């Protein structure tokens, strides 16, 4: 797992708002964020749906604040219109941390199996740029995401596999 002190302090330095719907793959990350709630410079809003999280992030981005969204890849099925008729249409930079469910280790979770298989083609057909948030060089992968997001003024997705932001 990524060192959460370092990771969250990086997030605090580079983002103003965090919103999303949880996945167990974010468990430790989210409890760390919750424990910081009072002292943190970053606002966290729990969303009822992934497209709502995208909308909240859009509000931040439209006032020159930097938002971060987290969601399970099952939520990918919920954000198509929020991306195509809002974030991509208005050209807004939003970083999305997306847990990658439906890989080998999710054998006992058939609910993720189909999205797991089509994950990349789904992201591809939405013209989303994405790569993994690597445990080892996480700072490089997220820094690169921020650069691309700002240069293209577009959303960028970082896929988060098991054990990267949770035990």
């Amino acid at each position, binding site marked *: 797992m990524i060192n959460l002190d370092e990771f969250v302090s990086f997030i605090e330095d580079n983002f*103003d*708002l965090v*919103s999303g719907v949880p996945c167990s793959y974010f468990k430790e990350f989210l409890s760390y964020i919750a424990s910081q709630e009072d002292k943190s410079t970053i*606002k966290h*809003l*729990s*969303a*009822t*749906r992934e*497209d*709502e*999280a*995208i*909308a*909240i*992030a*859009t*509000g*931040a*981005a*439209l*006032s*020159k*604040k930097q*938002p971060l969204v987290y969601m399970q890849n099952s939520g990918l099925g919920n954000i198509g*219109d*929020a991306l*195509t*008729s*809002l974030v991509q*249409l*208005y*050209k*807004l930079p939003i970083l999305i941390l997306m847990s990658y469910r439906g890989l080998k280790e999710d054998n006992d979770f058939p609910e993720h199996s189909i999205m797991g298989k089509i994950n990349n083609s789904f992201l591809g057909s939405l013209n989303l740029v994405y790569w993994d948030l690597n445990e080892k060089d996480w700072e490089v992968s997220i820094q690169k995401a921020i650069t691309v997001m700002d240069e293209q003024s577009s959303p960028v997705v970082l896929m988060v596999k098991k054990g990267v932001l949770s035990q």
Partner: protein
Amino acid sequence: MKGYEVISSLQDHIGENDLIVSSNGNISREVYHYLAKPQVYLRGSMGLPIGVGLGLAVMNPEKRVTVITGDGNLLMGFGSVITAAYYKPHNLKILILDNSQYFTTGGQQTVSSVINFSKFLESLNIDYFQSLKASQSILNDNLENFLTTKGLNILHLIIEEGKKELANIPWHPIRIAENFLQRFD
């Protein structure tokens, strides 16, 4: 009273410090034509105006954010009313223009009429709420309170169907965003 009449009545209340988010279809078009520009005119993202307003409000506590949403949009993103009510930003105002229709797509009925809005809004423990039938005197008596009471305020107005023929919003969404972002330079 029709939706565009309510929207044009907001003219006298809206100033430099106001950020407006309007839901897709007819309402965005009316907000573009009747109120000071630029604002956030949603072209699509049905169901998401309250979420966008919530993000704007929490990030800009010194501004007043007003979301103008149709009932169809409200219903599609109903969870966002709950999220807004939970976080209660002191500067967020939600105006629901309820014609019980998807008016923009041809007037198909929505299911909004089953909601008892007074009871529902009361249950949210928010700072201001009213559920009223729109008329000039109702607006005279309530708009100011709705906009100036500190807190999360929700005004639900029953409106008549109908519109003025207005040209489409001439700005591409990229331009909408660029112009709006300039307000934060």
